[in-house]
C-alpha cells in the first residue's frame, strides 16, 4: 500500500478519535460547558446590569435662596426629570454638608436675584456644584443639569413670547444610539470581552488538563502529530465558543433589547474570525502554562484584562496616551469591539467592518501559526 495514502487514512482515523474523545469529555465533564455557556450568561448579567454609564435618580440638592414663581417652575423641571432625585435645602451651608457627607452628588443653587439676572442676561443666575469623586458621573450630572436648564429656558422663552436669551444655543442630535442608552453601546463591547476570556480560557485549560493528568505524554508516544492534537482541540472548542457567542447575542437582543442594525450573518462571520484568534491565544498560553491553575491565571491576565481595558469597550481608545494607543492595536478584542458596535448600532458599514475583519484574520493566523510552531512533540 502506498504509505502516503495509508498515512492520510490514518490521519483521518486519528483525528476522528481525538474529536470523539473531546466530545465525550465535554459532555461528561461539565466544566467546559460551564465556561462556554454559563460564564457568558453570568458575566453578561453581571456587567449588563451592574455596569451602566447612565446616571439615573441622582440625589441632587436644590437651594432656593429666594422663592419666586420662576424658581418654583425651575425646580419643578428637576422633579419631572427621571435623572434626578432633587432634595430641597434651606441654604448653601447645609447643602455643602450634605454633599460632603455623600447624601447628594451635586448642588444647584438659585441665587437670591435669580429672577432679575434671568432677565438681564449674560450673568449666570444659577450655580452648579458637582461632586468630582467619580469623574464620569460628575460630567454626566453637569450635562444633565445644563440640559434641564436649557430646556427650561426654552420653555420660558416660549411662554413669554420672546427670543431665547442664551448667546449660543446647542442643538443636540445623537446619531447611532438615539436613545443614548449606554447599554446599547456597552453590551456589544461586553460580548467581545467575554468571548476573549472564554475562547482563550477554553483551549488553555483543556491543554493544561492534558499535561496535568499525564494524558499528553501518553498521546505523544502514539503516531499522532502535534497538528492533529491542535486541530482536535480547536474544532470542538470553536463550536462550543460559537455556542456561547450565539447565547450572548440572543441575550443582547432580547434581554437587553439592543437593536441590531447590521446583518446577523456578517456578525457571526466576524465572530468566527475572532473566536479563532481567541482560541489561538489560548493555545499559545498552553505552550507555557502546563497546569490548569497557571493557565487560567495567564489567560486572565494576558487576554481578559487587556481586552477589558484596552479594547475601547468602556474606555475610549482615542483619549488614551499614544503609547497605550499603539498597544491597543495588539488586542484582538479591539477590532471585534468596533465591528460589534458598528453592526449593532449603525449597520453594515463596510469601511469599518472590512479593515477590522482583516485585522482579525491576521491575528488569528499569527496566533495559530505561532502556537503550532511552539508546540513540539517533546517534553522539554
Amino acid at each position, binding site marked *: 500500500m502506498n504509505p502516503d495514502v495509508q498515512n492520510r487514512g490514518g490521519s483521518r482515523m486519528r483525528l476522528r478519535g481525538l474529536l*470523539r474523545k473531546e466530545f465525550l469529555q465535554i459532555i461528561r465533564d461539565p466544566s467546559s460547558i460551564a465556561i462556554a455557556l454559563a460564564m457568558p450568561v453570568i458575566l453578561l448579567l453581571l456587567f449588563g446590569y451592574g455596569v451602566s454609564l447612565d446616571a439615573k435618580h441622582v440625589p441632587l440638592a436644590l437651594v432656593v435662596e429666594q422663592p419666586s414663581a420662576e424658581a418654583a417652575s425651575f425646580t419643578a423641571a428637576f422633579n419631572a426629570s427621571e435623572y434626578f432625585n432633587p432634595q430641597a435645602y434651606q441654604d448653601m451651608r447645609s447643602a455643602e454638608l450634605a454633599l460632603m457627607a455623600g447624601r447628594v452628588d451635586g448642588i444647584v443653587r438659585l441665587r437670591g436675584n435669580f429672577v432679575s439676572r434671568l432677565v438681564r442676561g449674560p450673568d449666570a443666575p444659577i450655580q452648579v456644584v458637582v461632586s468630582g469623586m467619580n469623574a464620569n458621573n460628575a460630567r454626566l450630572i453637569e450635562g444633565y443639569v445644563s440640559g434641564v436648564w436649557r430646556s427650561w429656558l426654552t420653555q420660558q422663552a416660549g411662554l413669554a413670547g420672546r427670543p431665547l436669551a442664551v448667546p449660543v444655543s446647542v442643538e443636540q442630535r445623537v446619531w447611532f444610539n438615539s436613545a443614548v442608552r449606554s447599554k446599547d453601546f456597552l453590551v456589544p463591547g461586553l460580548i467581545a470581552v467575554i468571548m476573549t476570556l472564554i475562547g482563550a480560557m477554553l483551549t488553555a485549560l483543556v491543554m493544561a488538563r492534558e499535561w496535568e*493528568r499525564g494524558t499528553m505524554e501518553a498521546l505523544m*508516544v502514539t503516531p499522532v502529530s502535534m497538528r492533529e492534537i491542535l486541530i482536535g482541540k480547536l474544532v470542538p472548542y470553536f463550536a462550543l465558543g460559537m455556542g456561547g457567542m450565539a447565547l450572548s447575542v440572543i441575550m443582547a437582543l432580547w434581554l437587553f433589547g439592543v437593536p441590531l442594525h447590521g446583518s446577523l450573518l456578517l456578525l457571526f462571520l466576524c465572530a468566527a474570525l475572532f473566536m479563532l484568534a481567541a482560541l489561538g491565544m489560548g493555545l499559545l498560553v498552553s505552550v507555557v502554562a502546563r497546569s490548569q491553575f497557571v493557565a487560567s491565571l495567564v489567560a486572565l491576565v494576558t487576554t481578559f484584562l487587556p481586552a477589558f481595558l484596552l479594547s475601547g469597550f468602556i474606555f475610549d481608545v482615542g483619549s488614551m496616551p499614544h503609547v497605550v494607543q499603539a498597544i491597543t492595536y495588539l488586542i484582538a478584542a479591539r477590532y471585534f469591539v468596533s465591528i460589534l458596535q458598528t453592526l449593532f448600532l449603525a449597520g453594515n458599514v463596510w469601511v469599518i467592518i472590512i479593515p477590522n475583519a482583516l485585522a482579525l484574520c491576521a491575528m488569528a493566523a499569527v496566533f495559530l501559526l505561532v502556537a503550532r510552531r511552539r508546540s513540539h*512533540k517533546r517534553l522539554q
Partner: protein
Amino acid sequence: MTAAAQPFPGILLDVSHISKTFLSGGRKLQALSEVSFKLSAGRVTGLIGPDAAGKTTLMRLIAGLLLPDSGSITVLGMDATRDSLAVQSNIGYMPQHFGLYEDLSVQENLDLYADLQGVPREQRAARYRELMSMTGLTPFTRRLAGRLSGGMKQKLGLACTLVRPPRLLLLDEPTVGVDPVSRRELWAIIYRLVRDQGMSVLLSTAYLDEAERCHQVLLLYAGRLLGEGPPADFASALNGRTFSVQAPGMNKRLLQQRLRRAPGVLDAVIQGEAVRIVMHQPLAPEAAALLPGSGLTRISPIAPRFEDSFITRIQALQPEKTPMDFLQPPRTGGTATAGVVIEVENLSRRFGDFYAVRNLSFSVGAGEVFGLLGANGAGKTTTFRMLCGLLPPSGGSLRVAGVDLRLAAAQARARIGYMSQKFSLYEALTVKQNLDFFASAYGLTGKPHGQRVAWALEQFELSSYAGDNASSLPLGFKQRLQLAAALMHDPRILFLDEPTSGVDPLARREFWARISAMSEQGITVLVTTHFMEEVEYCDRLVIMASGELLKLGTPEDIKAAAASREHPQPSMEDAFIALIEAHEQMRMAS
C-alpha cells in the same frame, strides 16, 4: 521506514554514550552521563535504580520525547532523535502516570488508542477481547476509567499501550503504587507477552525484588550505569559472603543494629527472625567477633540475592561513612512510659454511606514498632488521621497516650509526632529555618529551643546543610529533615505515613536504623509502608483491606498463618496476597 519492516535478529535498542542535563533553578542537573547498552529481542530487561537515578529520563529519550545532549539512540533500526515519529509509531510506551481519560469508559479509552495507533477496524473486536481477558477487565468495559482501582487503571493503561502489538514495549515504573496482588498480575501479563508474542520489554522499577524477575538487568544509579547482566550474575558475585545470623533472646532490631557496626560487615537487614548480613570478604565470620559477649549465636551461610549486590555496588560509590550509631540520642527529659500507649476499640469512620474504616480494634505498647499494611484505599491514612486527632471518628473509642482523643485532641497532639507521606516542609526556607519554625510551633523558646535545634542538626547530620534551602536537598536528606521536624517536641509517639517511599535503599536502611534507636528509647512508632521487606522491622502489624482488619500479629505469626504444603515458607508478600485473596473470596461469597 524500510528498516522498521525488517525483522531484528539481534539488537532492538542500541543506546550509545547518552548524556542529558537539565537546568533546574539555575543549576545544572546531570540526569544521565555516558550511558551505553544494547537490548536484545525477546526478553524482559529491568532498568533498576532508586528514585532520581535517571530511569524516566532514559525512557523518554528512547521514546523520542526528549533530546539527548550527546550520544545516539537507535530503536528498531531508527534514530530516536531524528525519526521520533517513526519510532513512536513502532514502540509501545507506558509513562509512569499513564494518562487515562478518566471521564471516558474503559471501552472508549481503548477506542481512542486504537484510532490513534491506526488499528484497522476489522481487527479490533478480536484484539479487544484478547486484551480484556488478559487484564481481567472484561466485566468492566463500560465503567469509567476514573472509577477503576489503582491496579485496574494500570492494567487498562497497559491494554491501551498494547492495542496495536508493539515489538518493543517500554514500561516506566508500571508497579509503583500498585498493590501486591495487582503487581503479581501485571508481571504475569508481561511474561505472557514475551513468551506468546515474542515482545521485548524494557521495564523500570525501584523495587529491587522485581529485578530477580527480569532476564536481564541494567543497574542505574545517579545517572550512571553501574552494571548489566542477568540478575543471577549480580548475586553470584557475592557467593560465600552472605550469612544469616540468629541470636535467640535478642531483639531483632537490636541485633541488626549491632551487626551493622560489627567488623567486616557490609550490610545487615532483618529477614524474619534472623538478620541477613553481607561480609566484605568471602569468609565465614566468627560469632565472637561479630557479637562479642553474647551467648548463643547461630551463623549459617545463605544464597546471595540481587539486593545484596545492589547495596554493595552503591556503597562502593559512597564516600567513607562513619558507622551510624543512633542508639543513644540525648533525651530532654521523661522516662519511657510503660504499658499500653494506643488503644483502639471498634473504631469506624464513615464518609456518607462509605466506610473508610470499620470496627478496627488494636492496641500498641510503649516502645513498640507497629505497622499498618494494606493496599491503596485500605483505610491506612484515614486510621492515621484519626489517631493523630486530625479527623473525628464516626464510632468507637480511641485513646492515645492515655487521652481520649474525642475529648482532648490538642493535649494528645502535644505528645505525638507526625510525618506525612508528602514532603511537608517549607521548601523556600533553609534547613535551620525549618527546624527553628517547627521548634517554635511546638512552643520551644529560649535555651531549650536552641538546644533542640542544635541536637537535630547534629543527630540527623544536617549541620553541613543548615544554610541550604530545603528544596535543594536530596530526597533522603529531605526525609531526614522531616523526621527531625516531627521530633522537635520530643514526642512519645511517632506516626510515620509511608516514610520511605521514593527513597533509595541506602537511605532507607539508615532511616530504619534511626527508627530502631528511637524504639530502644521507648518511643512508640506507628508506620505504614508498602515495602514488604520493611514490615520485618515491625514488632507487630495489622493487615487491612477495605477498611477492615484482616490479621493482627507479629510478622512471623502472619507468615506462619499463610504457610501451606506448597508454600512451607511464604514470604511476607505471599502471606499478604493470600490474606487479601481470601478476603476477596469472602466478600464475593457474601
